[in-house]
Structure formats: structure tokens, C-alpha cells
């Protein structure tokens, strides 16, 4: 039965959700005595008004694309991978280890190695929960949450111990070799005569993220593996009837999911920090859940949702800076968007569906 056109499902509902979130945020700002319009202006100006702002926005966007893809592929197999945070952290470890181990002459060599190791480490961290789910029936949600904590502890241990630079206070590794430096937007755009801010962290990883979106699309809708993953996600009993091995699909999907999360490290670890610092992921793993949810597990949706959250993160930072709005309030605004677009999706969906059904009726369809 037709409930509503596709454009309403993919565009209208998220926009409505977003509007409601902004309205409530505006009321919150009014309540603490700030001008919501000025705040909105600051957020937009801060994230898109300058090349520095754009650079930050796209840097965050890149992170969220990777973790959104991680969540998205798992969702196609109807698995809720909450472990993006830990998998991205481990991806960072993989990237740091390989970049520190070799005196890289140039990023063109370092990047493939970083992609390989980031992906491998992320996948490896997802493998254990995947195996436990596939073979032992331990719920993936529980195990991946646990593995986030284990990852955080492990990273803390390594960064205050074996990986720490002797004699330094900071819980971080040594700086990566010069040859492992990824071109930033400033360096990439200079040859075209475009002046891009030197201080923005956006770098070549953004292009890798775009490439990953395309790979994701091919994987899910054009390959046999994607077909099997989607079939399993839709109906396990049907998948078994068709001869699709559930354990195999669970493990493979989670490996891909972990690898996407791990790839985030080429942006935040290799591209931005150029060393591995403590808590490098900064919650991007969790944002990926909202990104995939809002993006309907489709690459275009994931890109747009990641861009939105990139804007919220960068704009939110500006808000703190410009209006002395406390950090907690900014978090409230970000949380409202996640709540409305993710968790409360059905609140808006139902009434909109009803409206469309009434319209069908009025047309006599």
C-alpha cells in the first residue's frame, strides 16, 4: 500500500524534523536570554561564511561520513553497530602505528598504507563482537558498547605508556614523519588559484570519504554481497531458505562496518592531528548512528546528514565563542537535532502519512 511519495520520505520528513528541532532550540535560547536569530546567523556564518569555517565544517563532515557509512552498512544487515566509537579509535591506532613505523617519503605512499591499517584495525575491533553474535548469539548492541569502553581503556593505557613520547606530559604519540602529511584544502586548492584558509583542518580525506560513499552504493545495490546483506537484513528466515549463511553475513558485514569506522582515522589522526592523541574520536562514532538513521542508510542521505552535523558542530563551536552560550547549551541544541531526526522520527512521520492518505482519498485514488 502506498503511503506517501518517496520525496516526502527522504526529504520532507527530515526537513520537518529539523525545523522542529530548530524551533525548540530557539525557545531554549530565548529562555536563557539569547537572541535565536542572531545565534542562527552566527552558526551559519561560522560554518559556511568563511573558508576557515567551511574547512572546519567539512572536516567534521568527513568524520561523520565515515562513521555514518559504518553504521549504514550494518543497518542493511539489520545490525545495530554501536561500536563505531571504539572501532574508529582502534583505526587511529592502526594508522599511528604504520605511520610511525616507516619514515614515509610522500603521502601518496603513506595514505594507502594508512587506509589499509586504519581499516584493518577497525575491522579487527568489530570482528570480536561479530563473531560472538554470529556463533554465540551475544547481542551485538551490548558487545559493541562494551568494546567502546575496552577501546577507550586500551587507548588510554597505550598513550600513557608504550606509545607516549618519553619525557613529555601529554598522552599522545610522537608526531608523524613529514612525508606522511596529507594535503590540506589550503594546499590542494592553491594550484587552482583558490585561496583557502591555512588554519582549517579539512584535508584530502574528504575526497576519500566521497569515494567511500560511492563504493558503499556499489557494494549495497550492485554486488552479490550487498544483495545477500540486504536479504539477510530484511528476513533471516528467507535468507536461510535461499542458502545465505547468516553467520558469514554477520561477520563480513561487521568487518566492513568496522573498516569504515576505522577509516575515519585518516581524517582526524593522519590529516588533522598528525599524531595520535587521547580521545581522538570525540564522539563521532555515536554521531554516525544519527547520520545513518537520518540518511536512511543511503550514501546521498548519509552525505547530507553528515554535512548537517558538520554544520552543527562547527556552528555550535562558534556559538560558544561569539555569544558566550555555555558549551552545555550547544550540546542541548545538537542533542535536540539528534533526538528529533533520529529517535522521534515517527512522531512527524505518522501525521504526514495521514495527510498524504487524505490527499490520495480526495483525489479519489
Amino acid at each position, binding site marked *: 500500500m502506498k503511503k506517501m511519495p518517496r520525496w516526502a520520505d527522504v526529504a520532507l520528513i527530515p526537513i520537518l524534523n529539523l525545523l522542529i528541532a530548530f524551533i525548540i532550540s530557539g525557545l531554549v535560547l530565548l529562555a536563557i536570554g539569547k537572541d535565536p536569530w542572531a545565534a542562527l546567523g552566527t552558526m551559519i556564518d561560522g560554518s559556511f561564511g568563511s573558508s576557515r569555517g567551511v574547512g572546519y565544517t567539512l572536516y567534521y563532515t568527513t568524520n561523520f561520513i565515515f562513521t555514518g557509512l559504518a553504521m549504514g552498512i550494518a543497518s542493511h544487515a539489520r545490525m545495530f553497530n554501536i561500536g563505531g566509537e571504539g572501532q574508529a579509535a582502534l583505526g587511529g591506532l592502526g594508522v599511528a602505528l604504520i605511520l610511525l613505523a616507516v619514515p614515509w617519503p610522500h603521502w601518496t605512499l603513506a595514505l594507502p598504507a594508512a587506509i589499509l591499517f586504519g581499516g584493518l584495525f577497525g575491522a579487527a575491533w568489530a570482528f570480536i563482537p561479530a563473531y560472538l553474535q554470529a556463533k554465540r548469539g551475544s547481542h551485538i548492541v551490548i558487545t559493541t558498547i562494551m568494546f567502546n569502553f575496552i577501546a577507550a581503556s586500551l587507548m588510554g593505557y597505550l598513550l600513557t605508556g608504550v606509545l607516549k613520547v618519553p619525557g613529555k606530559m601529554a598522552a599522545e604519540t610522537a608526531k608523524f614523519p613529514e612525508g606522511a602529511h596529507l594535503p590540506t584544502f589550503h594546499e590542494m586548492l592553491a594550484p587552482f588559484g583558490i585561496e583557502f584558509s591555512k588554519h582549517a583542518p579539512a584535508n584530502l580525506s574528504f575526497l576519500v570519504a566521497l569515494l567511500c560513499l560511492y563504493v558503499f552504493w*556499489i557494494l549495497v545495490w550492485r554486488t552479490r554481497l550487498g544483495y545477500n546483506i540486504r536479504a539477510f537484513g530484511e*528476513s533471516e528466515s*528467507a535468507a*536461510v*531458505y535461499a*542458502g545465505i549463511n547468516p553467520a558469514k553475513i554477520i561477520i563480513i558485514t561487521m568487518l566492513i562496518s568496522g573498516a569504515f569506522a576505522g577509516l575515519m582515522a585518516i581524517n582526524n589522526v593522519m590529516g588533522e592531528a598528525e599524531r595520535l592523541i587521547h580521545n581522538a574520536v570525540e564522539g563521532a562514532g555515536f554521531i554516525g548512528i544519527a547520520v545513518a538513521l537520518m540518511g536512511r542508510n543511503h550514501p546521498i542521505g548519509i552525505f547530507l546528514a553528515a554535512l548537517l552535523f558538520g554544520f552543527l558542530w562547527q556552528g555550535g563551536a562558534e556559538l560558544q565563542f561569539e555569544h558566550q552560550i555555555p558549551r552545555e547549551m550547544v550540546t542541548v541544541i545538537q542533542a535536540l537535532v539528534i533526538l528529533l531526526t533520529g529517535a522521534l522520527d515517527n512522531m512527524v512521520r505518522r501525521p504526514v502519512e495521514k495527510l498524504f492518505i487524505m490527499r490520495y482519498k480526495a483525489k479519489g485514488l
Partner: protein
Amino acid sequence: MATATETGRQETAALASPAPAIELRGISKAFGPVQANKDISIRVEKGTVHGIIGENGAGKSTLMSILYGFYKADAGEIFIGGKETLIPDSQAAISAGIGMVFQHFKLVENFTVLENVVLGAEEGFRLTPSLRKARKLLTELAAEYELNVDPDALIEDLSVGHRQRVEILKALYRKADILILDEPTGVLTPAEADHLFRILEGLRDAGKTIILITHKLREIMDITDTVSVMRRGEMTATVKTSETSPEHLAELMVGRKVLLRVDKKPAQLGKEILKVENLRVVDEQGVERLKGIGFNIRAGEILGIAGVSGNGQSELLEVLGGYAEATGKVSLHGEELDLSGAESDAQSRRLKGIAHVPEDRHEEGLILNFHAWENMVFGYQNDPKYNKNKILMDNKAIWDETQAKMDRFDVRPPNPRLNAANFSGGNQQKIVLAREIERNPELLLIGQPTRGVDIGAIEFIHQQIVELRDQGKAILLVSVELEEVLSLADRIVVMFDGQIMGERLSSETDERELGMLMAGMKQGADA
């Protein structure tokens, strides 16, 4: 609204002397663009058994759901005992004296019969008085209507027939005068069904009104006084049962003449294709589901497995389909198949030429949220002709083949991009059949080929199965519809409790004998 009620009352009073138990006037209900009920009016007289018959999707269940307060009608009025009644929820239906026995029972498995009967109708804070009252009523009803069930038995220990009686008792405990039964015999053996009908007759004679929803013509003829026929959301006719015939009803249901019998030539038997020996299946709970069964199927033969559902037929299909473990021996063309699951799965069975139309197309045969074209290769997605290389699928090839198959099997609408969920039951089944039969298999496993399929499509599906047989293929047919097994199969094996109760040539047996075997009574049938 008030004036409408007034006029309604006057009209009803002016009409036939005893007010009808239920009268519906101009009921309409639409789900989005689908008009499930179109201006339906019906009178159900007090103290009668009124049948409502129609194909799947004709709108019977929607109508009853409106009557029971699950859906709100878009238009129309409901009169109970001559009085206009609003039924916004099931609580209102119950207080109006309507009781409903659903197709899928709504019982708490680990509660006793008594607790289930009282559940939701407890009086007061303490449970004991209600239980005592229910126990007394149960004893009375048991004596009066053959409604005997042990009040202290746990539901999970009861047979399906007994569970259904508990549902009826629940309704009677809530003082129902009007009892609606939705496809009540679907899960019963013929003997249990007969027992149910005796109960219903007793209730009718005691003045209760019974509405029986079914798609089985025989039941309508056997038990109802009046029958209403629904087609595509409309009530096409209401007739006295004594003044109609099954052929006439079928015609009313479908809107054209229907062939109720399967037209087929005698079987041309070839060599043995499948041999099953001492097949055993133990499920996860350690219960033996198949207890060492054996049979064979020859080329050009349809072997029918008759039996009430849940007696091991599903397990048999799963084992032969390659996705359940078993012990014993199964050979195809004399070559033994692996039953341990170590070297085989559903894929390897397909490669050996075993095609499988599963019993439940929603749970197994189709992915409802996949497009028709994606479903058309489901299970065969590894076939090189559907793949460009080891990684990428050849969607164009799949698409073209889907269009061809949809044409050949007359799938409507012939749109490969439509999700499987958006096809009617019959057309969904045609998609599965097209996929499996067009593989030209050596052995076709087919479970409940016409469950939830409209009569028009049944004819077509039966023809396809017989055609495959006539091409010299072996077919294993599992169906809970005795009529279907009798008319389609060449040889019939009856299963009961994981065992084979007997084997008959379909030309030399009848429903009575098979019914006895289905109920596990060997002696009765042999005598």
C-alpha cells in the same frame, strides 16, 4: 447524528418483527488508496449461523475488524439488536455482546485455561472469586455444548482444537450473544472441525448468533443457514444456504465460472527420483519432529503429504530444501544427499536440481521489501548468468528475465520494480512459482501452494504443477487443504506426529479415510 439514530430506530422497528442480531448499513472503509469495504449492508438474523465467504483480500476480515472495534469505518452504521451502536474499540464490542475467535489464538501459553478465560474480565481486586465463577460456568458449558476442556490445564499442553474451545469459552464468559469465528478450521483436523461444528450448532440452538468467516465452500454448505458472499470489498450476494450450491457460490466469489476440480491425465510414472529412508529430525528443544519416515517419489508423479499443520511437514520440507539437519538417508537419482549440514546448504540443493516453493512465502519465499526483479533470482543469486563477474550482479539480465517470467506466469501488475509486498497473495505466489518452476528442476518441493491465494489464481497454479509433472518431474506437495491434496496428488502419504500414518493412491481413498489418518487413527481408517 442524533436524528440519524432516531430514524434508524424507527426503520428497524418497522421492519421484520424480531430485530436482527446485527445489521450493518453502508459500511465503507479505505486504507489509503485501497477500498477494503465498499458500502456494505448485511442483516444477520438472531439464532442463525451466518457464513461470510470470499477470496483472500475480499474484505471479510476488515469488515469483522470494524465490527469488533479494531478499525473505525469511514462511513456507515452498526445496529446491534436493532439499536444503533458505536464500536470505537474492542471493549465496546464485548459490552455489546460480540465475541471474536481469531484465526491466531490470543492466549497466554503458560497460564491455565481458567486464568485465560478470566484474563481481562476479572472482577474485583482478588482473583479467586472470578476463578470460582469461571470454573462453575465452564462445567455448565462443558455439559451443555460438548465444550469440555480441563480448566486447570496449561494452554501450552493443549491441542489446537482445545485451544480454540478456550477462545470460545472466553467469549461466552464475557456473555457474548454474537460469536464471530475467523477461518476457524484452518488448523483443525476434519474430526476436530466436525466437533467444532457440533458446538456451534448447539450454541445456535441455544439462541446465539454465529458469524463464520471462511473461504471453504464445504463448511459453508455444511453448517450455515445463510451465506453472504464478498468480492473486492463489496457484498455481492446474500442467499439461503439451502437454496445455493458450491459451484454457484464459487462463481459469486470470483465473478466467473470456476473449475473446482483439477483437470489432469493419469500419471506416466518414470524411474525413482527421490528416496527417503528412516528420516529423523530432532529440534532445538530436543523434541523429535520426524520419527523415522520413509517414502519415494518417481518421475512424473505428484506425491501429496496430507496432515494437519505442525505434524512434521515443515521439517520435512526444510530438510529436503537443505536448511535443517537430520539423520537417515535421502537419495536423489540414487545419489545420497548430505543431511548433516556439514557439506550442504540450501544452495547445494538447488544446484542438484531441487527447487523449493516454501510454505510461507512471506517468511521464506520472498523478501517483501525487495522489488519483484530482485525476488525473481532469490536463492539463485549465485548463478553465473545473473552475475557480471565474481562481485557485481548483472541487474539488466535479471530485469529482462523477470519481465519474461512475469509475462509467462501472468503476474499482475507486470511491473518488476514493484515491491513484493505490493502484489496480491496470488501474484506473490506466482512470482515464487515462476522462479522455481522455470529452473526446470528434477524435484519440486512445494508447500501450501495455494494458501492465501484467490480462487482464480488457484486454477492457474494447479495447472502449472500438473504441467511440470507431465514433463516427467517429481513433485512433493505438502498441503493442509485435504481437497487440494486429493485432487492434485497421484499418491498420498498422511503424516501425524512426525510419523507416516498411511499411504494411499488418491484414486482409491476419500476425505473420510484420510481424515481418520490425519487424526492419528490407524485402525479406524484400515477397518
